[in-house]
């Protein structure tokens, strides 16, 4: 099967420092968790896929089409959605306006479910109760739902999620995990950046570890969770914190 996303040899510099040093990563459907400590370049990679940052070298292919050099809005229109780190909801727009802004009825979609505003409210009934509230008046968890909903109504076939569990209460985290399962079941591929191993391993079967700008390890989650040496080496996680 042709990979949904194929990243090879990507180098990115930010203000003179070499952040990504030849990233190779491939995703063929389902969900892949990209893990690694703070400052390793995960957000930089996500932003580069989206076209928000420029790579000096390498190739990023989505369904076989080269993305590098394309504007973010064209990349999005090919079917990639972003749930950014820190949610970044618009403070001047209400919940409903967020979804109306992002919804594009004419766009063709590859996933099994066609996402419109109503579908998002079905997925997250909490949002429907806050329909007239401004984005920044929502709780952290509600903002995350809104950020996901906003990306969904663009009907992406690949969703990039950057630390979706950041700052969520345990209950809210379960809600978002549940939502992710429904997305993958609906045929959307996920690339999930996470610091929480619990979240990452609940949402994805496969993982890739990013360390100082390169992928250093890939595999299946059950193996990783058993390998304490690997965890402490790459994730800086002591044995006790692996337990949920």
């Amino acid at each position: 099967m042709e990979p949904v996303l194929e990243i090879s040899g990507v180098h990115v510099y930010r203000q003179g420092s070499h952040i990504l040093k030849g990233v190779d990563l491939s995703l063929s459907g389902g969900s892949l968790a990209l893990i690694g400590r703070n400052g390793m370049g995960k957000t930089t990679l996500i932003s580069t896929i989206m076209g928000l940052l420029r790579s000096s070298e390498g190739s990023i292919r989505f369904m076989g089409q080269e993305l590098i050099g394309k504007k973010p809005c064209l990349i999005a229109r090919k079917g990639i959605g972003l749930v950014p780190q820190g949610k970044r909801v618009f403070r001047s727009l209400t919940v409903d306006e967020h979804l109306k802004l992002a919804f594009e009825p004419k766009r063709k979609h590859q996933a099994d479910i066609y996402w419109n505003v109503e579908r998002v409210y079905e997925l997250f009934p909490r949002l429907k109760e806050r329909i007239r509230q401004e984005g920044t008046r929502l709780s952290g968890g509600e903002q995350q739902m809104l950020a996901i909903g906003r990306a969904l109504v663009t009907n992406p076939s690949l969703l990039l999620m950057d630390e979706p569990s950041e700052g969520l209460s345990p209950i809210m985290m379960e809600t978002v995990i549940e939502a992710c399962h429904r997305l993958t079941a609906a045929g959307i591929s996920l690339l999930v950046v996470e610091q929480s191993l619990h979240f990452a391993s609940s949402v994805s079967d496969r993982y890739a570890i990013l360390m100082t700008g390169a992928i250093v390890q890939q595999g299946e989650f059950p193996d990783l969770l058993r390998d304490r040496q690997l965890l402490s080496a790459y994730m800086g996680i002591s044995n006790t914190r692996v337990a949920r």
Partner: protein
Amino acid sequence: MNVNLLMILLNGITYAGLLFMVASGFTLVFGLMRVVNLAHGIFYLLAAYLGLLIYRTTGSWWLCLIGSSLIVAACAFVIHSTLLRRVQGDDQRETLLTLGISFVVGDLLLAYFGGMPQRLRAPEMFSVPVSLGILTYPGFRLFVLGIAVFIGVFLWALLKFTQLGRIIRAGVDDRDMVAVLGIDIDWAFVAVFVLAGFITGLSGVIGGSYLVFAPGEDIHVLTYSLIVVIVGGLGSLSGVALGALVVGLIDSFSKTLVPAFTMFFLFGTLMLVLAFRPHGLRGREK
């Protein structure tokens, strides 16, 4: 109430209408898109002089109004797509570039039209004074107020209810997040710049029929727009309305009662507002 006082009050309010028109184009560009458009004043003056030209050839004030505004909107488009686009996001270069444009266009206007003060003649229908109970008032000024209210309602509805409005509001908050939704935000901002050019064109012709204009008037227009927008609060449409009302009333009262102190009162108000409300009367903190 004293009829004279009422007259000054009405003058202030109708002048506020003109100020609102002038400043709303400015706030769309400066307040929302954060483009420091120092060519704003010259767009106004250009529209007034184009109006003069169109009036001389066609004799129709309405054609001046529409024609000048369309031409200024087209100029805004050309300036944006050839020059401003290249320095997008760089405040210093935007400032210098738009200042340069205003010098060049200002000198061209001076060379072609000369330095004599000019005035456009509003249609006959507006020269009839309107009776408002205890006083009669120039019809044209009431028309100006009406147009200002219309523009205000139009812009408010545009920002609040349309997709372009949502794109602009969201884009002001977080441009990149709008782009990753598959929306061509650059295009939306061009549309806003052109719309602002059109409204400034309208206000140039209307203002040029309300007051005389001459080379150098652009600096006046720019200064008043800045004061209105800063007093009202950056990027807030209701703030512009409020700022225009405050400036219009101060201007009208001080010009009639203590003309030498007009600028003193204007800038004094600006200082007071900034001291107590650093983001303007209706501005929000970033």
